[in-house]
């Protein structure tokens, strides 16, 4: 070391190496401490806990009416669309963005799939691919405006929402394509509605798709470089750029993927409602954002897990069905869901605080 200190100050020589890594004693308090630690390191554990608690409570209150394979798979089917859209929304929100156009992209994609098949006689699989491409293209436009023109995502997607929805109505002339026609002529459009049973419980392709989608995205976000970049961009885009992340590419990939996932949601929507209806999906943006935030993803970006969004969507589904089964009427259900939203996030906050 002597040669490095050619004009170093004397006292600094006293700072000799001390190779042991410091370990402060860990004075955590047994079981509770462990639980808190787990919750702290797994942000999606909180909504999962709320979800399980909600199922148990409604199960106790309602008995087998609620605790049946029928009711459980029904909830999955009811949340599938919101769940898929929430996956797209999660990606965007992780980058500190927000996507208000998800519902419009979804319904427009489904209209493209339907109209291309029925109006122009294009083979159904090709029409489906066109619908998926349209969703991706709208997502790309969103991404370009956010990343290149540097407009706030809220504004971009607010504008795009209105543009896509108006285009959707103008193009479709608001015409519904009936379920029976699709079934006989283009049943591939209803592919996501196909059913199969596992031990008394009925699943649809759409439900399986939702679950797989979330798992794949959770993997990609956690275990690939792309995923790390998504978090970094959401955390602090400037820092990310300076430290070598291609912020533009990352944002483009996120918005395009979001558009594509919404288009898949559009396909799943046809499976669920049988028909192609241009008026669907009007609440998809609010519902997906609700799911994402109940699921513990920060609206400021960079924090949270996509699994949480799935749990968030399921929590809302469980409460809605549970409350209806308990006889709450629609207005009361609406009120209680409002309370639930606040309460779920308050619980989350509280657990995080306790676990420090």
């Amino acid at each position, binding site marked *: 070391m002597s040669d*490095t200190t050619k004009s170093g100050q004397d006292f600094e020589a006293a700072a000799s190496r001390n190779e042991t890594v410091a370990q402060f004693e860990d004075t955590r308090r047994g079981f509770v401490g462990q639980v808190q630690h787990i919750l702290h390191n797994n942000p999606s554990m909180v909504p999962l806990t709320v979800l399980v608690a909600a199922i148990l409570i409604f199960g106790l209150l309602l008995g087998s009416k609620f605790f049946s394979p029928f009711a459980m798979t029904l909830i999955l089917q009811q949340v599938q669309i919101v769940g898929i859209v929430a996956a797209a929304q999660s990606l965007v929100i992780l980058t500190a963005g927000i996507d208000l156009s998800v519902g419009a992209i979804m319904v427009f994609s489904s209209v493209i799939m339907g109209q291309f098949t029925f109006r122009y006689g294009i083979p159904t699989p090709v029409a489906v691919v066109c619908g998926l491409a349209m969703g991706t293209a709208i997502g790309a436009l969103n991404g370009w405006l956010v990343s290149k023109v540097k407009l706030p995502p809220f504004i971009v997607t607010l504008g795009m929402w209105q543009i896509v929805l108006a285009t959707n109505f103008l193009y479709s002339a608001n015409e519904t394509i009936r379920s029976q026609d699709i079934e006989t002529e283009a049943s591939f459009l209803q592919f996501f509605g196909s059913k199969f049973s596992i031990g008394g419980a009925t699943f649809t392709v759409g439900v399986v798709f939702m679950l797989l989608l979330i798992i794949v995205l959770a993997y990609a976000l956690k275990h690939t*470089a792309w995923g790390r970049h998504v978090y970094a961009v959401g955390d602090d885009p400037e820092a990310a750029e300076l430290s070598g992340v291609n912020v533009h590419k990352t944002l483009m990939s996120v918005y395009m993927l979001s558009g594509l996932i919404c288009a898949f949601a559009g396909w799943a929507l046809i499976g669920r409602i049988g028909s192609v209806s241009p008026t669907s999906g009007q609440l998809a943006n609010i519902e997906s954002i609700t799911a994402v935030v109940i699921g513990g993803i920060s609206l400021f970006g960079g924090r949270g897990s996509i699994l949480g969004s799935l749990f968030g969507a399921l929590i809302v589904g469980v409460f809605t069905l549970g409350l209806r089964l308990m006889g709450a009427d629609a207005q009361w259900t609406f009120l209680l869901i409002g309370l639930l939203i606040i309460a779920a996030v308050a619980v989350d906050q509280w657990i995080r605080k306790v676990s420090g």
Partner: protein
Amino acid sequence: MDQKGIGLMSDNTPIVQGRGIVKRYGHVTAIDHSDFELRKGEILAVIGDNGAGKSSIVKAICGATIPDEGEILIEGKKVNFTSPIDARNMGIEIVYQQLAMSPALSIADNMFMGREIRKGSFMGKYLRQLDRPAMEKFARDKLSELGLMTVQSINQAVETLSGGQRQGVAVARAAAFASKFIIMDEPTAALGVKESRRVLELIQDVKSRGIPIILISHNMPHVFEVADRIHIHRLGKRLCTVDSKDISMSDAVALMTGAMTPEEAGVAA
């Protein structure tokens, strides 16, 4: 290291050259027709008052900001960096004064941001899975080299580190990955005595690997300890560049604060 590049250029071509660089922020002129030069294998210190424009000029050099006027040559070739990624791809690493980390991500994630290591296995090749153990080991080793012993876990989020610990991570990252040159904007500002020592040693290490360094610092003893030449910046311009052996600390300080002119100090402007 870009051996070929170095081999090709004539011996006295500077590694980096900036000519007539101007950068304005609205009404403020942060760099005012300033020149800049970094030579092969040297440690160049940049000193100057607060707000003199030191950070601004090195940001212009590495593409972090785009200058309004002037040109930048790397190894004699004109470059137009539009993003710091361009600079990084040429083997240039920067420790920014405002650190540039993702607070919510771990130390290891931050060190490998933008150049993650994938697993060699099937998972890595086809599912692009990151090789976390490898990245963590590398990060732990680099921090240990710097003597940052109080970091408790390599998976700790950067936002939970102390100011000095963060700076250590940034320095370790730059030193680990640079192949052309390194810019360090006040790398020891928040560091403790011991940690500062390690950074100075590291700077010498890097130099001995043949990689030149630009060091911005307010710490004169540190500057005079390691620098070969000193670029004195004043009011947005390069006032002069002097050999560190040819000038006393007091004169350097007098020059940079305007208490003395280059003529008085007997150095060429």
